[in-house]
């Protein structure tokens, strides 16, 4: 493999990591509060507000129904508005985040719902405020599941970021398509796939390790 090709792959890896990392972090910051709202505003929740819950749930479902490639194109005006351009890494981060945040919200929601009602009642019986219940019970008790869910979200994001190559975002997926597929450079294709496998395995391994470490159930 030529030095140029090596540099190309390295740049692609770098771009993939940046896209995944930033949109992952944003998805976490948006998705977790979203999940908390979805769980706590539901009927019987500690911040019960069923109307809010239904509307938010509907928006999340709608966003999750749109295929990512369509979302990518449909969001171009919003992307332009937010980052001033519809191409490049930052242009990809907008649709990636908007696709991944609702996804992660639903995954985190499942973990949050697994916190049993009696545990919440126990905290209420101690005179805990709703915020204390959130901080001391709901989040810590579901954290192992949330970490596992975030790992899944990150892996999904890596896959989606490959598609973002379609808007000129770069990244490994873009290289695989342009060099490996369109120019029949099999070694590029194989290299990209191998790098992606290693990346995904690495993320999964770290996520599993972290989830295990904080799980004391």
């Amino acid at each position, binding site marked *: 493999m030529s030095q140029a090709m090596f540099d190309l792959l390295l740049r692609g890896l770098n771009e993939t990591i940046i896209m995944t990392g930033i949109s992952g972090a944003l998805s976490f910051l948006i998705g977790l509060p979203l999940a908390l709202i979805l769980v706590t505003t539901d009927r019987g929740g500690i911040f019960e507000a069923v109307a809010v819950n239904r509307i938010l749930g509907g928006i999340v479902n709608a966003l999750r129904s749109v295929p990512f490639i369509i979302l990518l194109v449909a969001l171009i005006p919003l992307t332009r508005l937010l980052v001033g351009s519809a191409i490049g890494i930052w242009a990809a981060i907008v649709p990636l985040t908007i696709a991944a945040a609702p996804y992660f919200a639903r995954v985190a929601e499942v973990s949050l719902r697994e916190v049993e009602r*009696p545990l919440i009642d126990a905290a209420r019986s101690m005179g805990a405020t709703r915020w204390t219940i959130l901080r001391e019970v709901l989040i*810590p008790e579901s954290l192992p599941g949330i970490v596992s869910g975030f790992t899944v979200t990150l892996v999904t994001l890596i896959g989606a970021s490959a598609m973002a190559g379609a808007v000129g975002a770069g990244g490994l997926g873009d290289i695989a398509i342009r060099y490996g597929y369109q120019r029949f450079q099999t070694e590029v294709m194989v290299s990209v796939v191998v790098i992606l496998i290693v990346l995904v395995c690495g993320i999964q391994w770290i996520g599993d390790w972290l989830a295990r470490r904080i799980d004391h159930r």
Partner: protein
Amino acid sequence: MTEHPVVLLDHVTRRFTDMPALDDITLSIAKGEIVGLIGRSGAGKSTLIRCLNGLDKPQEGRVVIDGLDITPLSEQALQPVRRRIGMIFQHFNLLSAKTVADNVALPLKIAGVGAAARRKRVMELLDLVGLADKADTWPARLSGGQKQRVGIARALASDPLLLLSDEATSALDPETTQGVLDLLARVNRDLGVTILMITHEIEVVRQIAGRVVVLDRGRIVEEGPVARVMASPQADTTKSLLRGLSPILPRDVADRITPDGDQALIRVDVYGPDARRPLLDDIARITGRPARLVHGGLNDVQGEPYGRMFIALGTSDPDSMRRVVAALSPKTTAIEVLGHVPGDV
């Protein structure tokens, strides 16, 4: 001014859809009491205990805690009241993501106690329940009995005036149950904490409660000092809950009871000092024939003996029988002629 009760339920009714879970409950618990609330599952025990700290609200009636009517209070207004009521649970409800010490510290954190004071108080509490060496352990590593001790330490953290126990020993084996009950009795005696324990196990009530309240389909069907209620239960629910505890006639003896026969068989229920009387001797003196204990036994409720005995009179003479029943009636809780049995049972 007389001291007001710690708990006062005033004609409390709680309905779920149409079914009343609590039906016109009136109950008062004085400071320092241990009250056992017993009933079958579905009798409304859990609903009652949840009404006491506002986790549930009655549609009618008042719930008064230490003089304060909590019925109209909002969730926020209830919080300071709840901080004065400890609660322990059948399944412990410890937080898995917190160490033993942090679990016990949670009520203190909620009450705004500083970290240093918290740490000190937590160690005192863990000492009290005999788990000082487990402070930094995760709850998942503890046995059931140890978990409940942590639960008790946590419930006592904010110096509650009332401790609610929701089937706290129902998930524990008999030996562990004993340890937890001893601890609760000690907490009541040494710290003066009023305890309301709900259970379906009459044995738990017998061991530590002073007063028992029997609940059936949302109503109080019987109430009184444990020894009195156990010795002479009035309500059918109480009788059936007590069934396992009183001796019953063995099958082979019961099968041989006939309307006529060699010897009359009577059942005698005794309670208190009467349980110590030389009953067989009393009977023998009346009938002039030796009386025989066929089956039975004594038990005790906080030092008060109570029991049930099946006695063969040694005669079938109706006149002797009548005189025995007449003579023993004032000295026993219940006496009944069951029939006749052959002389060899």
